[in-house]
């Protein structure tokens, strides 16, 4: 985990991120100082507990919005981070104030920066300061979607050697391709629309199969360090709406978010055309992992000509096959 964190840091935390954090921090301190100098109106005095509750609500919402699919621990970590940054802003402001007003007047400085104005300012600036490090917060790894195979319960497929055609289970057992040859075709299926299905959860695709679809210049330095069977989790809600198009196209910047640290590149220097390039996911691996309900069709609406007596036939003078 620390290695992954380090990799994520190395990949996503650029000099620009650090610069913007530093600038935001300084700007926050300056603004807090300004606000501290202002005399607060009496009606602005709000109970400390209320301020804390509002602050926590804002932080919680922000962290959740920043990182879709964030884990509970990641969410708590994010809130703690924001509180820490907020406190460090007010503390720095207090120290600066004490320094400006005369050394030794810390209690007075702290009580002034603990009032509503500077705290609100620090809370909002904490969001700005912490924004670049949101990518380090861990996301959920849940897999509620049941993998599908002819025999029932075989687990997710893993592509061997980056070849999307080869599916392996537990190392070498091949997932049989779902054989629908003996199933009745055209029978009327119960009515279920995609919108009524729960589209949460993820499907797992082998990194090798995913990278095989990605232009080489977008591969990260450490892409080769991962086994091609390393799994990439893709949200189901992203793939299902595209099934009707017989292809699953994902913008590279979105896909990059789901790749392991260092497997891809998405620096701003690559330019918009590269970062927004569409990558096609292997349709076969996606479809075979989705539950059958996804493909259930509404009530048949065949036109009148389609309904005939199935016992009727047109006779041709056929020669039996030898």
């Amino acid at each position: 985990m620390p290695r992954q964190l380090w990799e994520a840091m190395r990949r996503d935390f650029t000099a620009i991120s650090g610069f913007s954090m530093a600038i935001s921090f300084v700007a926050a301190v300056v603004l807090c100082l300004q606000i501290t100098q202002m005399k607060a109106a009496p009606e602005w005095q709000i109970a400390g507990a209320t301020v804390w509750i509002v602050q926590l609500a804002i932080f919680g919402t922000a962290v959740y919005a920043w990182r879709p699919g964030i884990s509970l621990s990641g969410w708590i970590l994010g809130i703690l981070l924001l509180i820490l940054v907020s406190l460090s802003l007010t503390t720095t402001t207090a120290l600066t104030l004490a320094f400006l007003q005369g050394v030794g007047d810390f209690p007075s400085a702290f009580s002034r920066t603990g009032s509503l104005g500077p705290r609100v300012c620090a809370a909002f600036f904490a969001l700005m300061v912490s924004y670049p490090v949101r990518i380090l917060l861990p996301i959920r790894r849940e897999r509620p979607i049941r993998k599908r195979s002819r025999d029932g319960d075989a687990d997710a497929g893993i592509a061997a050697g980056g070849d999307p055609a080869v599916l392996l289970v537990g190392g070498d057992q091949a997932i049989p391709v779902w054989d629908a040859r003996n199933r009745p075709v055209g029978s009327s299926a119960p009515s279920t629309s995609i919108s009524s299905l729960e589209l949460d959860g993820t499907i797992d695709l082998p990194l090798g199969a995913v990278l095989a679809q990605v232009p080489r210049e977008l591969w990260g330095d450490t892409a080769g360090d991962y086994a091609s069977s390393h799994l990439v989790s893709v949200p189901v809600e992203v793939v299902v709406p595209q099934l009707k198009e017989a292809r699953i196209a994902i913008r590279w910047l979105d896909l990059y978010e789901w790749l392991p640290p260092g497997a891809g590149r998405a620096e701003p220097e690559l330019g918009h055309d590269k970062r927004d390039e569409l990558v096609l996911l292997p349709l076969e691996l996606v479809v075979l992992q989705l539950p059958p309900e996804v493909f259930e069709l509404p009530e048949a609406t065949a036109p009148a000509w389609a309904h005939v007596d199935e016992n009727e036939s047109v006779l041709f003078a056929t020669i039996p096959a030898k």
Partner: protein
Amino acid sequence: MASINYALKEISCKIVYYGAGMCGKTTNLQYIHQHTSPDKRGNMVSLATPGERTLFFDFLPLEAAQIHGFKTKFQLYTVPGQVMYNSTRKLVLRGVDGIIFVCDSQWEKMRENLESFRNLQDNLASYGYSLETTPYIVQYNKRDLPRVAPVEYLQYLINPRQIPSMEAIALHGDGVFGSLNAICVRVLANLTRKQKAGVA
């Protein structure tokens, strides 16, 4: 459109095999040609490139058993599947009575299948026809190949209205006559229906 010659007591219908390139349309026709009695079929006309790609169309006249005293003839056509031959495909669709949409079941052909189906709808619309009024069936071909999509997904993709469909291995003849029969029955029933309504 189907022609009915009351003097000769003859019905003639046009069936078109439509689908993406290399999906097995010509193979269907070849199998029918090889497995029908020579006195009940004409010669198969096929204009193909050396790479076995249909250049213009394939044509096979076929005669069925008499229906209500009428000699029933079917003219079977295929279209070139390659995207660049759309004007030929459009031409072949003129006066069509029934369509067999041949779908290649292989995963890598899914997009081509979908595009071909949309192309069929567009080309029919250019004549004022539609799949609402023109009988068609869907044939899922190449089911013997190792990497094929489940029929449920093919239905979801190509045939959400659940028009009659069947699986086939045209190379071995599985589902070839089944598909032909399914469309012929519907074409004749549609013709009868239209006649009763005074449309034909």
